[in-house]
């Protein structure tokens, strides 16, 4: 562990393959995520971005290749070792995934109560510190059903950092949020990352938002990495694919039309 922590790279992915039934989702991926950075995995819907997060978190096992987090090969860990590693990883799910039967306070306190023997008074203080960091100290007695979508995500974020993890993963943090909430979450991701010495991995397809806060962007398409670098590298990239994605062009390497037979044939040819 001591020599692993000197390693600049926290998450090292090599030759990663993953299939869901007959459908190949990831087809040989190599990515390095450096310690202390905010890295974003981008790509159109259905390219396996969330799958990649689940592989990093050990919820799925790769068909081939390795995912190393802090020097440990995630897929080869025993359940106990995996749980030890996960205590040092936070994850914010797309929907927040708050426990609907617990208050905001109890949601944030949940990992602390499960994994530490801290006295209740100290847990209270820690929860209030975490809630204050996301600006929701006053909402501690609300139930998840009383929160707006943006607030729920901030509570989820407070819960994800409650054990002071080394890294945090965000699954589509901006999807479906109003501009103010998007701004708040963007600022939180960057600020928490820098203040707490975290490493952040974001899965998103909101180009403008992640370009503003990421150190590294990795573009996925068709199960492969098509571009990987800083936001500036990507903007200057000559890859047709990256251009289409970043400029939101409707047609290009990702075709506008779902594969179909010839249009003329379809209209004037023989009917089936």
């Amino acid at each position: 562990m001591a020599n692993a922590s000197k390693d600049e790279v926290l998450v090292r992915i090599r030759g990663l393959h993953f299939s869901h039934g007959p459908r190949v989702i990831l087809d040989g991926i190599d990515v390095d995520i450096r310690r202390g950075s905010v890295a974003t995995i981008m790509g159109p819907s259905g390219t396996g971005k969330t799958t990649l997060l689940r592989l990093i978190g050990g919820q799925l096992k790769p068909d081939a290749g390795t995912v190393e987090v802090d020097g440990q090969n995630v897929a080869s860990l025993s359940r106990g070792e995996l749980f030890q590693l996960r205590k040092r990883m936070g994850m914010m799910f797309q929907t927040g995934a708050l426990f609907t039967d617990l208050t905001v306070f109890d949601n944030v306190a949940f990992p602390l109560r499960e994994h530490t023997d801290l006295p209740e008074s100290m847990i209270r203080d820690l929860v209030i510190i975490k809630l204050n960091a996301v600006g929701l100290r006053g909402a501690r007695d609300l139930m998840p059903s009383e929160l707006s979508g943006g607030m729920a995500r901030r509570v989820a974020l407070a819960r994800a950092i409650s054990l002071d993890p080394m890294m945090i993963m965000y699954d589509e943090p901006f999807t479906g949020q109003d501009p103010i909430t998007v701004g708040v979450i963007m600022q939180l991701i960057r600020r928490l990352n820098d203040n707490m010495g975290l490493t952040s991995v974001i899965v998103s397809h909101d180009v403008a938002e992640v370009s503003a806060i990421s150190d590294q962007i990795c573009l996925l398409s068709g199960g492969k990495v098509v571009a990987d670098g800083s936001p500036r590298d990507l903007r200057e990239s000559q890859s047709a694919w990256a251009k289409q994605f970043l400029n939101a062009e409707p047609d290009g390497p990702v075709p506008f039309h779902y594969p179909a037979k010839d249009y003329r044939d379809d209209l004037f040819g023989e009917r089936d």
Partner: protein
Amino acid sequence: MDQWLQALGKGGLSFFERLGRGNVFLLRTLTGLPSAMGHFRLVIQQLHSVGVLSIQIIGVSGLTVGMVLGLQMYNTLVDFGAEDSLGPVVALSLVRELGPVLAALLFAGRAGSALTAEIGLMKATEQLSGMEMMAVDPIKRVIAPRFVAGFISMPLLAAIFSAVGILGSYFVGIGLLGVDSGAFWSQMQSKVDLMEDVVNGVIKSVVFGFVATWIAVFEGYDAVPTTEGVSRATTRTVVHTAFAVLGLDFVLTAMMFGED
């Protein structure tokens, strides 16, 4: 013919695959029981929602079943001048058969479906995944307490069903139809055997409780995490529990009462 065979094979394979998953799941749940007992507060909460909240439907159903049973039995027995046997007839039918079976069916409808829907929705809203990512095993934290609660509640609910049913038939028999109260109780006392009848009925309700809760929590945990998937899983819980309980009831009855 080929297609028919293929469909049969596919159906068979998926059935056994599911059965296997169900058994692995049960094993994991059982190994999670000690830690569920450690979090006894969770079990108490579940006992409330699974058990206490089912008492109403179990009580009302037990009462009406007992009353109807009293009426029907009386009409037949009175032809033979045997209306004094109303007590044992009603008690035996309830304690041996109707109590455990009907309580289990009602339990599946009231508590089992709720368990499946709750767990399925927790899965659909990524709460179970979230728990795993927080290094907490959802089987220990979510499934095991619910399983324990169902397993404890079902036999108690069956006992309540039988007791209330007997009271229902008492009200009808003695209050409306004029059966002798002393004969009703003394006949019941002398004809109903503790081991042969009561204990066998309790064993049935324990088995049904185990199976009904197992099916309910498994269907929730195994549900496809979508709106449609959860609704299907909930339906399956009720249907499969009904089949399992009725089938097991026949087997258990044959084993317990078959020889004499």
